[in-house]
């Protein structure tokens, strides 16, 4: 098997919790996690639903390999309809919570309805119950984590929670587990909070003991672990520098969106890079980075554990931050750093701590603050709106103040909490929002990496890098090098990355393995562990099915080909310096070919024949 075969259904309106069997036919078609939960969403939720209405559902989903000895087996996803985008939202997280949920015996938890009062779900193996959370409401993720550990007197308890931002209606609140790992994007935490659900606390001691062919599985796992260890990225780059290994690389090729993407290179990049995190600080002689850290089962260990200089202005006289916690990953360092023009490593680290403590997506937060800084510099907003804070590009003080306000949903932070699209529309400058489908794009400028323009434009959850990471090919040469400045061939490249990623995100393993692994490295592990025959072809087909089902959900939610677009700045304002000078993104050269490769209409709709071919015709 390797699915537990059980789903926990939680009706928050009535306060009831019940177990039901997993639909194993769907598991064979959609694998688990992202794919399988999307299938349930399509069957149970009207895509046109208001994301914050009780009729929307939130699904916590593990994959068949979650909680096994396969490397990176700690993953789970949170799937819902997202409030930032109005599209399907699926956010993936590592840490230890996902494996614990599996060890408790659950493939998925489906939350429906809305609780009349704040509650949290407590799971101890087969036992699951809703418990009052009135005293946790209004608390940060970190305070909630501590309170639940104290209450249950169980150091092994794993907690996933939403923070104050989610409660206050920030549209990009995430679900944070294990203090610093997050299902971060698209506002999945906002939906959770809209249901008065504060946290899920789980303890699982059943383990995973239903591997199909254990001896073959252990052999496959050992072989694939060796592949990760021998690969330069997963064996050296990621453990040493984390994803921050990219900061200097992406800056050098002129693909670093800077100051709300006005520029394509950031002069302060090296000060906030992975390398800088290793340098002893001039002030206290200690490096920002204390150690690397793994998610459950992960032999890569890309995680960053960092501390901030106790004398740094952000934490001076705040002893509660004088310790280590989750440090900067590349996307966060970019959003809180380059995109706001901030080159203060400790300030960005502090902002990252707050994003974790209060559960907000650092990418959308940073990019929204960058848009606000541009509005401020253009004189559209003034200190009158910002509560006296000078929102200047490069101001670490503004970053620190604004992340605190946004985390708590107070003052101008409440406006920032709605994301840059709503902010810029409100102040009459919609073109300053760097979003697709309402979600901010991350740390790769599509003027310098053409394929990423198509990836952002067509991503089913709004602009996103982990839906089709063609940076791997266009910049790093994985699995093959393509020219980042060329549009030819990118439609096929993006499609292949999107489909493979959808499959990988459904297995329970981490996408970062794909720097070293292709589907041919996943297949033998899945095939040894899971019922059914799992070949590369079948995985690729499942990935394509998942992608199209997400698209069909969005289509039924009212999204069209017109939403497959990029901010004008990327299409019209050429890069000014470096290798990207004179270049814009040429989305129009890629999009029609992409639609045709996908088997969609010229308008980007998923027609019946494509639905029939992929077996999703009756899914919605």
């Amino acid at each position, binding site marked *: 098997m390797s699915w537990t075969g059980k789903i926990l259904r939680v009706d928050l309106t009535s306060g009831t919790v019940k177990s039901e069997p997993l639909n194993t036919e769907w598991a064979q078609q959609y694998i688990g996690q992202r794919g399988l939960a999307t299938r349930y969403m399509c069957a149970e939720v009207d895509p046109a639903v208001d994301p914050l209405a009780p009729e929307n559902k939130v699904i916590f989903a593990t994959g068949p390999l979650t*909680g*096994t*000895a396969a*490397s990176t087996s700690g993953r789970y996803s949170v799937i819902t309809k997202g409030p930032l985008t109005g599209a399907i939202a699926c956010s993936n997280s590592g840490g*230890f919570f996902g494996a614990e949920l599996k*060890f408790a015996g659950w493939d998925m938890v489906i939350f429906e309805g809305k609780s009349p009062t704040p509650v949290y779900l407590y799971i101890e193996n087969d036992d699951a119950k809703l418990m009052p959370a009135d005293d946790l409401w209004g608390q940060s993720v970190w305070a909630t984590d501590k309170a639940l550990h104290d209450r249950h007197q169980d150091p*092994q308890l794993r907690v996933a929670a939403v923070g104050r931002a989610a409660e206050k209606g920030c549209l990009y609140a995430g679900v944070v587990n294990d*203090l610093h790992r997050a299902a971060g994007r698209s506002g999945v935490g906002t939906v959770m909070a809209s249901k008065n659900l504060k946290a899920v606390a789980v303890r*699982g*001691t*059943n*383990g*995973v*003991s239903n591997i199909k062919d*254990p001896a073959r599985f*252990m052999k496959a796992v050992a072989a694939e*672990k060796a592949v990760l*260890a021998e690969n330069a990225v997963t064996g050296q780059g990621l*453990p040493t520098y984390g994803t921050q290994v990219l900061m200097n690389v992406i800056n050098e090729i002129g693909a670093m969106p800077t100051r709300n993407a006005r520029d394509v290179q950031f002069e302060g990049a090296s000060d906030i890079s992975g390398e800088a995190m290793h340098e002893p600080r001039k002030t206290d002689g200690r490096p920002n980075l*204390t*150690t*690397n*850290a*793994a*998610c*459950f*089962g*992960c*032999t890569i*260990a890309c*995680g960053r*554990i*960092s*501390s901030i200089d106790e004398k740094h202005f952000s934490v001076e006289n705040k002893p509660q931050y004088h*310790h*280590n*916690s989750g440090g900067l990953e590349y996307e966060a360092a970019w959003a809180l750093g380059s995109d706001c023009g901030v080159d203060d490593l400790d300030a960005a680290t502090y902002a990252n701590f707050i994003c974790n403590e209060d559960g907000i997506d650092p990418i959308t937060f940073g990019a929204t603050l960058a848009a606000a800084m541009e509005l401020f510099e253009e004189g559209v907003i003034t200190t009158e709106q910002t509560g006296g804070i000078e929102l200047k590009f490069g101001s670490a003080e503004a970053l620190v103040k604004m992340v605190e306000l946004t985390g708590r949903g107070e003052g101008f932070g409440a406006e920032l909490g709605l994301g840059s699209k709503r902010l810029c529309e409100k102040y009459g400058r919609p073109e300053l929002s760097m979003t697709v489908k309402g979600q901010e794009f991350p740390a790769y400028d599509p003027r310098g990496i053409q394929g990423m323009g198509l990836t952002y434009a067509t991503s089913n959850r709004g602009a996103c890098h982990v839906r089709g990471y063609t940076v791997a090919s266009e910049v790093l040469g994985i699995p093959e090098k393509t020219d980042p400045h060329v549009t030819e061939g990118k439609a096929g490249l993006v499609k292949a990355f999107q489909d493979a990623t959808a499959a990988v995100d459904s297995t329970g393993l981490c996408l970062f393995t794909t720097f070293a692994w292709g589907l041919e490295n996943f297949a033998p592990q899945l095939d040894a562990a899971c019922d059914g025959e799992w070949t590369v072809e079948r995985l690729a087909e499942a990935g394509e099915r998942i992608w199209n089902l997400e698209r069909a959900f969005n289509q039924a939610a009212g999204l069209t080909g017109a939403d497959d677009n990029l901010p004008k700045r990327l299409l019209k304002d050429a890069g000014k310096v470096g290798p990207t000078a004179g270049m814009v993104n040429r989305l129009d050269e890629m999009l029609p070919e992409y639609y045709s490769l996908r088997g969609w209409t010229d308008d980007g709709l998923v027609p019946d024949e494509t639905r029939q071919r992929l077996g999703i015709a009756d899914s919605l």
Partner: protein
Amino acid sequence: MLKSLHIDPGKCTGCKQCEMACSYEHEQSFNPSLSRIKVFDFHEQGRFVPYTCTQCTEAWCLQACPVDAISANESLGAKVVSADLCVGCKVCTIACPFGTISYNPRSGVVSKCDLCDGSPKCAEACPTGAITFVDASATGLDKMRQWAQKTDTAAG
């Protein structure tokens, strides 16, 4: 040569591959709650520490057991619990100063590290070399080498 587990917390990333290898070897289940080795995460210090039985010579657990369910495997240096003999009285868990022998409510008997018959699965699964199985008389060799390297031989 007698070998023993050597743990270097500085190399540990907290991934728990050891716990899965251990529980799979002894319980045919990926189940950290049944692992004889545990990794502790001191989050605020940024430290991970794997911890298990050191197979001490004094063997308080063995001495305390009223039914002789714990025996010493002299060639391995391991103190091994016989599940058939154990009556689940937990006296050994009180006697052990380190807490590395523990009661399993499901099986009704205690369990502890037995060095996997001479090829510890935790050491095999560890991706960083934080857990190794080395000559028992030389577990300090790494540290000695590090300090030796720091010795300033040039000083006159």
